[in-house]
């Protein structure tokens, strides 16, 4: 089961990879990431994970994130890979970090590759990769 509710928060078990620097997080197993459809990016990670993946050793792009209170914050990032082991799929996208983020957040740029059903009635989540045309 790769996706489930933690309290009422939908989460997905993933692996994060930096193929360019040949790094992965976690080194073994999977890590839990929160799915947030309000986040329009691909993946947001804490700074320590960003560094463990050696993403900070590549040239970084900057952009602005609009917070829920309307304020802005700056993020830095580059491209990496997210693996969903239970689905047998992997996706490339922009992995970014900001000061103060304490969890791994999946955004719509990653979610758009999947069919996601959140059934709060039965507290079950169904996730499958989009079928290619």
């Amino acid at each position, binding site marked *: 089961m790769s996706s489930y509710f933690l309290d009422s928060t939908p989460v997905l078990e993933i692996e994060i990879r930096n*193929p*360019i*620097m*040949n790094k992965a997080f976690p080194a073994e197993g999977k890590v839990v990431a*929160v799915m*947030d*459809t*309000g*986040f*329009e*990016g691909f993946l*947001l990670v804490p700074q320590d994970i960003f560094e463990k993946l050696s993403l900070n*050793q*590549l*040239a970084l*792009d*900057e*952009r*602005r*994130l*609009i*917070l*829920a*209170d309307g*304020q*802005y*914050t*700056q*993020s830095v*990032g*580059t*491209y*990496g*890979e997210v693996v969903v082991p239970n689905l047998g799929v*992997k996706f*490339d996208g*922009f992995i970014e970090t*900001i*000061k*103060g*983020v304490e*969890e791994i*957040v999946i*955004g719509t740029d990653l979610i758009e590759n999947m069919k996601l059903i959140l059934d709060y009635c039965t507290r079950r989540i169904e996730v499958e990769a989009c079928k290619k*045309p």
Partner: protein
Amino acid sequence: MGTITISLDDDVEKKLRDLVRRMHGSRKGGLSKVIESALENYFASVDRPIKSGEASFKALKEGAVVAEANTLDDLASILRKKRIEPRGLRIISSKPIRPVVHGGYRIKRS
């Protein structure tokens, strides 16, 4: 490093200077960084058409393309075969990132 003098429409210039000020304040080199990043993304988008919504990736070293592939795994493989040091490389996608996006509800201002 080369120096280029260009003319910009007044509206474009204002937007550019506002963006530089927001992203880099009055730090030296901010204008160059923003223009360089914008141009690299533009080059990526015009050089290779997007097929079926899939992105392709290029690795740049000192502004020059040293490898390109449809996936990051393939890009990494090419770099290793060419024995190119990956530290400091700029990776760009044919699907450029949007400069401003909503951060969602999980981020708290630190």
